[in-house]
């Protein structure tokens, strides 16, 4: 296979600019020139909860839709808990009671008076974005985030899964052609970004997730093993949202592929240093490859 390696970079030292923004408008906590570390929160807000339930209040109470309003205990905007009564009807001095309860935790988003229906929506979901890489704020994006700038090494993989992760670079193998297996993994690797050689096995992936390793960088992975690890087939080259307990970046391709010497050497020269990785991959238009950033020390 003659590959294009389009969008794949290998830089010893370069200026790295990361745009850090929340997916909505919110509060930005930094200003231009601020020094930030990887864990600094840049901006935060809340987003609308996609979980919503429509409740036919009138059928629960057994009344005409346009009569529902008089039985409502909650109004638009009120907080409700799951199973909390939101409307009640009483007859014969309270001897016959019918109630309508909220199906979820959230708030009353809409009460349609004439239709006798309510939409209960889950509470807003908090979102925040961290700097991910240590550096300086080069630009502020009002109400959304900022651009963080730093100098460091940058290595792109060809494919990855899992989102952003950070940790100290550690090596499990001495040569780029060696496989990353459970035998070369130890308790000392917990919380680190572990660099392997030609391939990572399924057992090693599972062990890494169990022992809270933050990430793995390796030359290849067997496509079948990755499918089994993820628990589903990889359809499109659009990743980053997987919740599998760690981030995996492959630098060469699927199967057994010794990591290129120059990549291995560059990563090895930063052994023990903090790295920020992101497995997010987007192959198609506006290609996005997974990346390993190692900020310059000092």
């Amino acid at each position: 296979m003659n590959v294009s390696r389009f969008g794949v970079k290998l830089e010893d030292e370069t200026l790295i600019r990361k745009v850090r923004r929340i997916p909505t408008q919110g509060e930005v906590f930094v200003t231009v020139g601020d020094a930030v570390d990887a864990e600094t929160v840049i901006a935060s807000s809340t987003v609308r909860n996609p979980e919503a339930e429509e409740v036919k209040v009138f059928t629960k109470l057994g009344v005409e839709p346009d009569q529902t309003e008089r039985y409502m205990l909650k109004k638009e905007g009120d907080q409700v808990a799951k199973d909390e009564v939101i409307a009640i009807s009483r007859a014969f001095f309270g001897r016959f009671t019918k109630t309508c309860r909220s199906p979820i935790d959230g708030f009353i988003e809409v009460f349609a008076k004439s239709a006798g229906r309510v939409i209960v929506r889950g509470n807003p979901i908090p979102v925040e974005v961290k700097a991910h890489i240590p550096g300086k704020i080069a630009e502020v994006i009002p109400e959304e985030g900022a651009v963080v700038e730093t100098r460091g090494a940058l290595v792109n993989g060809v494919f990855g899964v899992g989102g952003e992760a950070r940790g100290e670079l550690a090596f499990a193998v001495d040569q780029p052609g060696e496989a990353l297996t459970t035998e070369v993994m130890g308790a000392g690797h917990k919380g680190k970004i572990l660099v392997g050689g030609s391939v990572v096995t399924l057992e090693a992936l599972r062990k890494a997730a169990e022992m809270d390793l933050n990430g793995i960088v390796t030359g290849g992975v067997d496509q079948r093993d990755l499918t089994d690890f993820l628990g589903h087939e990889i359809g499109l080259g659009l990743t980053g949202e997987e919740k599998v307990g760690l981030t995996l970046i492959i630098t060469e391709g699927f199967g057994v592929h010794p990591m290129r010497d120059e990549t291995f050497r560059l990563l090895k020269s930063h052994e023990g240093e903090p790295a920020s990785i992101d497995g997010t991959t987007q192959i198609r238009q506006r290609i996005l490859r997974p990346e390993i950033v190692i900020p310059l020390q000092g």
Partner: protein
Amino acid sequence: MGSEKESYLIVDINSHQTKAVFIERTGDGYGVEGTSETPTTVDPPELDVTIGVEKAVRGLGQKLGRELWVSGKPSGAHRLLCSSSTSGGIYMNVAGLIRNISTESAQRAALGAGALLQDVFSYNDPQPRFRMIERMRSLRPEIFLLAGGTDGGAEAQVLNMAGLIEEADVKPRFGDGYKLPVVYAGNVDIREEVSKVLTEDRYATRAVDNVRPLIETENLGPAREGIYDSYMEHVIVHSPGYDKLVEWVEGKIIPTQAAIGKILYAYAQERGVNLLAVDVGGATTDVYSVYDGVFNRSLNADIGLTYGISNIMKEAGIENIMRWMPGDISERKVRNIVGNIMALQPESLSDEERMVQQSAVREAIRLGLEQHKNYATRLKGVRLLRDLGMMFEQALEPSILNLMKTQVVIGRGSIFNDPENLKIASLLLLDALQPWGLTEIYVDISSIMPHTGMLLDSNREAALQILSKACLRKLGTCVAVKGKAEEGVEALTVSMSTSGGVSVEETVAYGELKTLPLGAGESAKIVVNPTKRFDVGVGRGRSLDAKVTGGEHGVIIDARGRPFGTPIKKEALSVWAESLKPRPVAPATKT
């Protein structure tokens, strides 16, 4: 100047390539004088589509020794036409009243105009209104097509659907500050009321003739034209550089898929044939059909041979990819090859990788065809007058696709341009589509089908000439039988007599694929005599007498039955591929 204008400079811009073609009258016909292509420049760093257009046109000018680019724009001496598809199609949402009636017609109109359908909404949709609103809000289409009601028919329900769009406050894909283009193709009596709901300050509404003026009538042309107009006026101008390009071109810039659809429809009409064409790209698979004069297009987004190849494996299942692989190859290896084609976007492939891609293309086409059957349907909601005889006819099937009455099959996409794949392109199409009876097989060899589609309105004769001469390559004519028997049992005998007086006779067993040599441009008379268990399209055991034309693979006799699965013995896959290779003319006698 007048004679100069008999020449055409036609540019097609897709997400990767910008291809310019120069067409001119030569002698008593039209011919392609040259082509040139460069990478498309609509994305960063260039962010100006005209940079790629300039490079392609200048390159073409250099090849031809002509000045095609003068003072920063096309010279103007030739008619400039353009099609474009930089994002796989027009992102569209469709809404109607009844899912199977007006919505389905609107869906067909949108797909025919080159849409990439994001979602479809109906008044009789079982999901609650607020869910539809949420979904609409999340999609950001480029154009919304609203249909519903026959002329003089339903009003309140159509206005309700317009109200739904309004309530959802659907924002256009190209930016919040712009108006959302809406094409209204429903009940003509309530156009004004619709425009009062979808107000001018937020919507650029264009009313066109109803897609379903009567329950028994479908009228898709005006809706397609309306989509082209909205695309030209409100969508394309927001892409970088298109404002300049629009000034240079003659007429509308239409989506590439629409240009392909137009030429395929014209070709089928011109020849009076039913046609089925598949276009397998890196990320999408399009299927086009023309049956009894009715055109349909469907799009399987995210099913393709590079970016979309992993999705083929996901949708079809690894076992369906594996079934087309001759020889011993492990599932793990196939999976890794598929993953690498997707992730690495290779520029060339090894033999093994090519075999995986060939297996995947069969499944991509099969999936595309399955989906196409759901779009290419007879009109629903129409009362059918059926007599006893009709009860058994396939015409009453919901789909109008009839593989027994498919006279022409066309393969399109880079896989069919690769010389190695071309050797077995007939087999790929036969395996995936499984036509039966008599079918001519073609591939688009030059990738200029969209260009011929653009030329169609200006010069139909030239467009069809170029399509036949420079675009379509005939691979052969296939005669396929339906039926089942034990492997090796005689299925048919065939005799062929060429106009040059050469006769060939063959006996073909069930499960076999054989070819009779007949070159491109040659014709012959064939008589096919199936045994009593087999049907060549005229009834079990009845013989077929027909005139056929040749191609690179000659006349292909396909006695694998219909439908056929993959053989138990894997060697048969190699034997089938071998049988398409050119061979010396079989024992021949002068008549």
